[in-house]
């Protein structure tokens, strides 16, 4: 026993302390409790991993039987294998850095303790999700992170857009969770258990399903769940709106950790997916379509956080593409490197926003290079990494993905390469608009305090060197068979060139000839407007799903079912009673003599009735 349970329960303790007493604590104590609990959790992860290394086989700890009902037996088990070890490191490590950063960023916000309580609660659920050894416990963490996401998106709950964005995230995730629940039911029907080792052992013995079948159904439903949590088509719409939350939330939950839960879950269930090629192909195409669509939207946005939000959706699409072509370890590698550079992008963006007093529109930025040099320096590292400049972390994972995709299908490969170029383009665009040229705003930019830029510096180092430091596919070899794509130098050159090309085009358009973007946008006209308005997907969902649902709920369920039928029956019964009572009320005149008269009348009726019945019985006798 290495007491794995301490890893999630330390942040839970932080949540309880801050949640219950945080209102009375000073900000210093709140942040010490919150950051300290995550730091301890991180150290405990390190200690546990040292103890269980090298983890050739999973280390499982069973604490108690959680649910026992008929043939359903679900123990409360935590397990760590190499896959969850990587996720643990990322979640607690990046989580710790973002916790530290948030103490600077959130310093002047109301409800400081509330923010940290939810942040710690999120860590608890995320770590439960990662450590779970069966689908149900994973689902607990899955739902829990969704809850925390909702709470933190709606952190500025007096802002209407923030609370509706929280609702949207929660409701859209319900659709995915519905798929996940159905998948769990099917898994229980098919395998009789929800334990990971048993299910995957049984799945390995199954034949590969070439046509539709049970395994395919399970995998497609799991994909629906993953699409909800990881913001893939068709359920990605909540993530861009989720940027209403504070920036550290966007960095931790909506970029680095929670949204990769879907990727983790699919990778975890790889034994099932490998038996369902149809589902795998679907995963790949969903990922690719999401990557392309979100990347193109990212080009046109002006809100710096929106750009990075669509970038996140797009990068998650990349991860799904990797999973779909069977390169699970490349997908997880991208999870790790993406956690570094995307967290850095968001935190850097937060630093810019902080510097400009909550200005998020890039049209009001520019020329910040000299004004906030440290932020510029660290963001440059993230910029290089996400653009796939050779030997940065993003380059390693992206090349691993593209190599595997090329082995699977050259068509997908070329689309992927194009997307890589677009990715490099829109990130460069955001950098050029923010840091280069003339300052177009009116605020007085100031550099962020060290407590904010120090975590950024760590992430910057990781963004640059993380790919070389953590060779994830090598670590994951015992779990996932080595990816097919052998190192093809030609593919790597093409991939790198795509990234550099993107940067170059952005340089030409935004530095060399600044008038170009507007004229191109004008010449494209309708196409530009289509992309700028995010392909009108929100509007289409609104028209085809939300409005009919709202209208039918309003008409059929509310006006007819509730108001007319249920209220009608209840009010009818009530009205009938009143009517009867109104009649009977007249008897209560208050005059004793009338009461007595009624008594006499009753007695007379009774005697007559008794006589009639008695007479009838006498007659029978």
């Amino acid at each position: 026993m290495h007491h794995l349970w301490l890893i999630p329960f330390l942040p839970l303790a932080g949540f309880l302390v801050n949640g219950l007493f945080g209102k009375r604590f000073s900000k210093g104590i709140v942040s010490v409790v919150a950051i300290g609990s995550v730091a301890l959790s991180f150290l405990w992860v390190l200690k546990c991993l040292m103890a269980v290394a090298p983890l050739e086989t999973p280390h499982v700890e069973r604490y108690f039987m959680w649910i026992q009902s008929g043939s359903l037996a679900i123990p409360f088990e935590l397990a760590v294998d190499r896959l969850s070890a990587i996720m643990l490191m990322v979640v607690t490590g990046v989580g710790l850095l973002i916790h530290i950063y948030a103490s600077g960023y959130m310093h002047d916000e109301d409800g400081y303790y509330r923010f940290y309580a939810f942040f710690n609660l999120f860590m608890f659920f995320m770590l439960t999700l990662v450590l779970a050894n069966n689908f149900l416990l994973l689902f607990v963490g899955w739902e829990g992170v969704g809850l925390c996401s909702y709470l933190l998106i709606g952190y500025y709950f007096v802002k209407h857009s923030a609370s509706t964005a929280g609702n949207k995230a929660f409701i859209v995730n319900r659709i995915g969770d519905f798929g996940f629940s159905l998948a769990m039911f099917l898994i229980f029907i098919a395998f009789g258990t929800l334990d990971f080792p048993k299910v995957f052992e049984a799945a390995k013995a199954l034949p590969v399903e070439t046509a539709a079948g049970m395994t395919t159904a399970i995998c497609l439903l799991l994909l629906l769940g993953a699409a909800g949590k990881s913001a893939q088509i068709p359920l990605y719409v909540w993530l861009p709106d989720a940027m209403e939350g504070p920036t550290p939330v966007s960095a931790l939950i909506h970029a680095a950790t929670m949204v990769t839960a879907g990727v983790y879950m699919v990778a975890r269930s790889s034994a099932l997916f490998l038996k369902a090629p149809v589902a795998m192909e679907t995963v790949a195409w969903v990922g690719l379509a999401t990557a392309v669509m979100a990347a193109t939207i990212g080009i046109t946005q002006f809100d710096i956080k929106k750009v990075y939000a669509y970038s996140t959706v797009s990068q998650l699409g990349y991860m799904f593409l990797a999973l779909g072509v069977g390169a699970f370890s490349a997908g997880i590698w991208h999870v790790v490197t993406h956690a570094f550079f995307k967290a850095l992008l968001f935190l850097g963006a937060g630093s810019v926003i902080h510097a400009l007093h909550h200005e998020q529109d890039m049209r009001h930025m520019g020329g910040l290079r000299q004004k906030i040099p440290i932020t510029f320096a660290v963001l440059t590292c993230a910029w290089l990494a996400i653009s796939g400049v050779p030997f940065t972390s993003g380059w390693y994972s992206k090349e691993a993905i593209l190599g595997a995709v090329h082995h699977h299908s050259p068509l997908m490969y070329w689309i992927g390469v194009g997307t890589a170029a677009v990715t490099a383009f829109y990130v460069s665009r955001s950098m050029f608009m923010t840091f280069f040229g003339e300052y177009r705003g009116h605020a007085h930019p100031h550099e962020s305090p060290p407590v904010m830029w120090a975590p950024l510096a760590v992430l910057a180092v990781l963004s640059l060197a993380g790919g070389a430091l953590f060779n994830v596919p090598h670590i994951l070899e015992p779990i996932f068979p080595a990816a097919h794509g052998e190192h093809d130098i030609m593919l790597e050159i093409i991939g790198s060139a795509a990234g550099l090309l993107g940067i170059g085009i952005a340089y030409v358009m935004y530095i060399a000839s600044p008038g170009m973007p507007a004229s191109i946008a004008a010449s494209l006209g309708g196409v530009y407007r289509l992309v700028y308005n995010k392909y009108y997907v929100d509007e289409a969902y609104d028209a085809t799903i939300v409005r009919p649902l709202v209208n039918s709920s309003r008409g059929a369920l509310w006006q007819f079912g509730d108001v007319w039928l249920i209220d009608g029956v209840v009010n009818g019964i009530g009205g009938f009673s009143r009517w009867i009572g109104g009649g009977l009320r007249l008897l209560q005149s208050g005059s004793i003599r009338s009461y007595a008269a009624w008594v006499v009348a009753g007695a007379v009726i009774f005697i007559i009735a008794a006589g009639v019945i008695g007479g009838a019985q006498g007659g029978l006798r």
Partner: protein
Amino acid sequence: MPPLPIPTAVPLTYYLILSAILFALGVAGFLFRRSLITIFMSIELMLNAVNLTFVAFSYHHKQVDGHLFTFFVMVVAAAEAAVGLAIILTVFKNRGTLAVDEIDSLKL
């Protein structure tokens, strides 16, 4: 045709009819008189009508139960008379009248 038995005592029916008449008089007095005292006396009349029935049946069936009931009723009636008269006195002191139509504060 055998001769009818010569009645040796007043038959039961006569008692019951007398009792019913007394009871009906009590009810009528209760319903139609205005004075509280008269109403009170009517109640006593009804009680005694019932007592008469009890005694008659008791004699007819040669059982003592009816007598017992009668004694109970008399005891209760005595107690009731004491309480009732006290209430009537109090009502008269407070209201200055014994007309039931005017003593109607039970009415909302």
